[in-house]
């Protein structure tokens, strides 16, 4: 997909129906750096989902809600959301990749490619 055609991934919005608290989950370069400084790597999500998914969820709050504590996000994930669905996780991964993707310069499609891609 060409650079101009790539759509921006929308942030995830969590809304508590009882308290009306709203949380926007998104990543910027600083929050990705924050996660990596604490040893987080995206590949670990597959290898250690039980520990890395809650950690990943916590980092997603860093950009818009810096003061939210880890125990609060763990509780939210465990009790309020009942875990993380694959779709939710996929969107978080896409959001995590966004700061990097915006730096990738697509020089356009190769003319007369020798191979076609079918997804």
């Amino acid at each position: 997909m060409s650079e101009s055609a790539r759509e921006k991934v929308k942030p995830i919005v969590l809304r508590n129906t009882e308290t009306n608290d709203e949380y926007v989950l998104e990543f910027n370069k600083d929050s990705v750096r924050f996660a990596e400084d604490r040893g987080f790597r995206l590949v670990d999500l597959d290898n250690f989902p039980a520990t890395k998914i809650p950690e990943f969820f916590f980092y997603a709050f860093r950009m818009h809600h810096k003061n939210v504590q880890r125990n609060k996000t763990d509780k939210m994930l465990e009790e309020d959301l009942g875990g993380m669905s694959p779709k939710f996780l996929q969107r978080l991964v896409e959001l995590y990749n966004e700061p990097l993707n915006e730096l990738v310069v697509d020089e356009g499609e190769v003319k007369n490619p020798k191979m076609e891609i079918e997804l």
Partner: protein
Amino acid sequence: MTYSEIFEINCPIYMAYGMTYEEYWFSAPGRAKAYREAYKLKVKAKEAEMWRQGLYILDALNVSIYNNLNFSGKHRTPQKYIEKPLEVVAKSKAEQRIEAEQERQKAVESLKAWGNALRRKYNGDRDIRPRIEN
């Protein structure tokens, strides 16, 4: 290489594009791309400006050489440096209409003057316009 390392490497590049340090690290994704695209446009505009400057210099040299170095010794009408800057920004439709109208007026005036000159030359002050006889 981690994402953070890539971000660190790119930070000064994007700051050269005009982004502040805070914008680069703390803004939502998307802004960096806008800065990169804007920088491309700036470079393009700068190149066009330099190319135009080359044209001005070329014209100045041509005029200067033509006017000052006359090897044939014959009298020549001196050349003039371009009278107004080259137009870069495309004219709006309204401007184009006004200019076309001015050109038309000029052509009408010149035709009238030409007609008057002809009349004076061949017929004195008599009106030579064709008349329809009843």
